[in-house]
């Protein structure tokens, strides 16, 4: 982020306007999240990131649904809509189709995007609408006081599930890959550097980009997570278990072997007979080299599900990043090619081909 501060001092080219700063993206509204909530870190990252992207505040639109995370647009001094529960991708799609000149972001949560808004999310992804979708996943309904969400682990205790939830959680990355998303990434709120790098990569992607940002809920989380916080940290060290929390999440880097642990003693290996991914030793010749650019999403999907069997935390990083025409681009091309002969004439249209004249 050091370049951001440098840029802030420079005039922004021919327009004569100075480059936007963090302050330009900060509103006067009081931020009303719980102390310790990851949303603060995400907001702060966004305020730092947006000026670095070189997009002017007036050309940025942030659309959200309902939930704690969906308050975020109020705190970013761009154009924004705090819409209704689950529907943010639909409003954002309407904006993107009609205004391809804008940088359109969606901020949503696990309840907003995956429960009430699941339909809109998958369709925005399959259409490859040019949206940057930040899915803030704290595995709980915070704003309605702690009910289990579609990403809550089985057995989550909450006011609506006092004996533990029964339903299997969604894996947001796997779901996005299944919907045909062209950019899918996962990051965490507690690692500012990783968060910034991931959001920067998402912003650079042309088309739908889904970024799952895993975070804790300091008020309602039934299962505190993520190295450095709560029960996981207090657990006894298990150096021989690759799934032990102290190893932290696997970090995916394009072109590098997927290894982890303090001495890179563990690695993700592919079973040559089945193609399935599993955990092995870091020195194994079968360790996979990460390639998010693979068109076929089978690999990314297998990677996304890795944590469900053998790891405490799922891998973080860019799972998939492939180039396909975005929906707004296809739409504009269709608009341009479908009107040979230029602008239509209203009088000619209304008259049609079978009109007649009454002399009166």
């Amino acid at each position, binding site marked *: 982020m050091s370049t951001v501060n440098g840029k802030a001092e420079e005039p922004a080219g021919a327009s004569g306007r100075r480059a936007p700063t963090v302050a330009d993206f900060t509103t006067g509204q009081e931020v009303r999240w719980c102390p310790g909530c990851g949303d603060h870190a995400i907001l702060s990252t966004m305020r730092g990131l947006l000026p670095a992207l070189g997009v002017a505040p*007036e050309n940025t639109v942030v659309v959200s649904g309902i939930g704690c995370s969906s308050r975020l647009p109020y705190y970013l001094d761009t154009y*924004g809509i705090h819409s209704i529960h689950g529907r943010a991708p639909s409003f954002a799609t*309407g904006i993107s*189709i009609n205004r391809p000149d804008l940088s359109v972001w969606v901020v949503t949560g696990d309840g907003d995007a995956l429960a009430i808004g699941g339909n809109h999310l998958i369709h925005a992804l399959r259409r490859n609408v040019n949206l940057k979708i930040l899915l803030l996943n704290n595995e709980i309904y915070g704003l309605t006081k702690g009910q289990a969400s579609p990403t809550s682990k089985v057995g989550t205790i909450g006011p609506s599930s006092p004996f533990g939830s029964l339903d299997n959680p969604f894996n947001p990355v796997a779901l996005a890959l299944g919907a045909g998303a062209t950019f899918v990434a996962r990051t965490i709120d507690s690692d500012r550097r990783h968060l910034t790098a991931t959001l920067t990569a998402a912003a650079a992607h042309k088309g739908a980009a889904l970024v799952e940002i895993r975070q804790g809920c300091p008020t309602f989380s039934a299962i505190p997570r993520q190295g450095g916080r709560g029960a996981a940290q207090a657990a006894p060290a298990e150096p021989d278990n690759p799934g032990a929390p102290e190893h932290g999440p696997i970090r995916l880097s394009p072109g590098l072997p997927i290894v982890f642990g303090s001495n890179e003693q563990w690695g993700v290996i592919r079973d040559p007979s089945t193609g399935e991914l599993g955990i092995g030793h870091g020195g194994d010749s079968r360790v996979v080299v990460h390639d998010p650019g693979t068109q076929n999403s089978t690999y990314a999907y297998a990677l996304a599900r890795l944590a469900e069997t053998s790891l405490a935390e799922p891998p973080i990083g860019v799972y998939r990043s492939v180039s396909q025409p975005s929906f707004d681009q296809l739409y504009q091309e269709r608009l341009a090619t479908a009107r040979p002969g230029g602008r239509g004439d209203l009088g000619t249209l209304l008259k049609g081909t079978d009109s007649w004249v*009454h002399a009166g």
Partner: protein
Amino acid sequence: MRSVGPARRTRPIATAGRLVWYPRRLLKVSEQVRERETRRLDRVVVRFAGDSGDGMQLTGEQFTSETATFGNDLSTLPDFPAEIRAPAGTPAGVSGFQLHFSDHDILTPGDAPDVLVAMNPAALKANLKDLPPGANLIVNTDAFTGGNLKKAGYATDPLTDGTLDPYLVHRVPLTSMTINAVHAAEETAGSVNKKEAERAKNMFALGLMSWLYHRPTEGTVGFLEKKFAKRPEIAAANIAAFRAGFNYGETTESFTVTYEVAPARMKSGTYRRITGNLALSYGLIAAGELTGLPVFLGSYPITPASDILHELSKHKRFGVRTFQAEDEIAGIGAALGASFGGSLGITTTSGPGVALKSETIGLAVSLELPLVVVDIQRGGPSTGLPTKTEQADLLQAMFGRNGEAPVPIVAPRSPGDCFDAAVEAARLATKYRTPVFLLSDGYLANGSEPWLLPKREALPDLTVAFTTEPNHTGPKGPEFWPYLRDPETLARPWAVPGTPGLEHRIGGIEKSDGQGNISYDPANHDRMVRLRAAKVAGIANDIPPLEVEDPSGQARVLVLGWGSTYGPIAAGCRRVRAKGLHVAQAHLRHLNPFPANTGEILRSYDKVLIPEMNLGQLRTLIRAEFLVDAIGYNQVRGLPFKAAELAGVLEDVINQ
């Protein structure tokens, strides 16, 4: 079918007809010349009825097209099942098309047919109850087989058991004659099989009807050539069947009379025939031209509104953008997002879709952005009667949202009026930054009438000006307050993304008056609720007053309507007045708010009668707002009112 006089003239067959073809093998025209009566009528109602697969809608449409070209006034009523192919040969699968045409201005598709074309026993069974004694009945005798009679539910053959005695029956072996004609035609020789030949039987029926009513036929031949341009042999088969039907009329002994309906005297100008959904689509395109905004339609397929999505998707040359969303909610969401971005956002649906869109309409009320919500009403509740008409969504449009969420409502009165109503809805939406309901219905959507083309210069200028400058001075300098209202209209400024310095966030949470930041302050909420209500109520000062038609000036009974009932109500009033009774008619285009003079008018009559295709929704609103004890006349049969029926109701109310 009233005769306006005795036989006016006779004509020798095959010489006086507008178009006579000399068929190749079927007829020897020279031997057929004899005298036949031509009767002049002032109006006729014809109905085509057959199986869903028989092409009755196309036949009716084409007969209507011929009639429009001839210059009659007309009104149509298609009536078809929801299933694409209901079980063939059963009454459930019968598809009908009724056309009323005349030498004077008419208002409805007609109460009862003067002539019914029945392509099979099921069509006869489903439609015979509507046929008055003495009417012409053309039946396809080839279809009256044992199996078909059974499927239609006939125990005995109505052609022979006396069922049809009250009618003027023309027994026509339509299927076999069509096959013979097609196979006899040189252009089709060997290239059209029997099944394909049989499928042209609707064109035989059209040819016969065209002959019987002296319709011009050039257009139909051209239409068939164009429609089947990729399969010339099918075009030839249909044209051969069409001509054979026409020539059959010339030669058969069955028809001793043909009918003429002179062109109507109509206001001078250029006309075209138009359905409500087409006129509505054109109105939305025109609204884009008039506002200077790109039109964006976010929609999801639903009967009977899908035609608007289909039509608008063709017109990219007008910058019209259409988006078929994943559901009704996303359709309106995309439209509202488009409006935020500076387009004219529109969504189209029917009643069940409105239910799904309600939350977003509420958001649009709160965001105060322009949005046109088109509801082509159909029979409800729930899935109801998808292809039948009703006007039972009025209260849904009025109240179907949480909180105090007023939305202006506009309703067209006829198919052609859908154009003007769409322009009006867009005017209110853009001027007042509000969602607006446009309530059409299935009858208007699919019905058609001649439409006098509007002159471009007569259309209103709806140019929209976006806000480009800060509108408030704060402690740190110029600011943009998204809820600082125009003092006259109470509309808020519309600043679109891309405008520097006017960045702002809006949402469904209550916001502070003026500045627009989140506010839970009790007094502020009370003020904002009242401001939104006052903004919509103020539209009453920006719409024309309610007009009353009372030719004698002596009426003590007012009949009040809205939407598609205009035609039947006006026709009913004419009938009553023709008997020397007095009745006043008023018809509401704006249902929220009502025109400013509505209460005054209602209170100046002894009785107010409100006929509606629902159980009294407008009546509920009128009683609540004006304390007028209006009388209801209500039916929900999926069909428009009949003029005679309303005339009877009016007489009863007048004479009580």
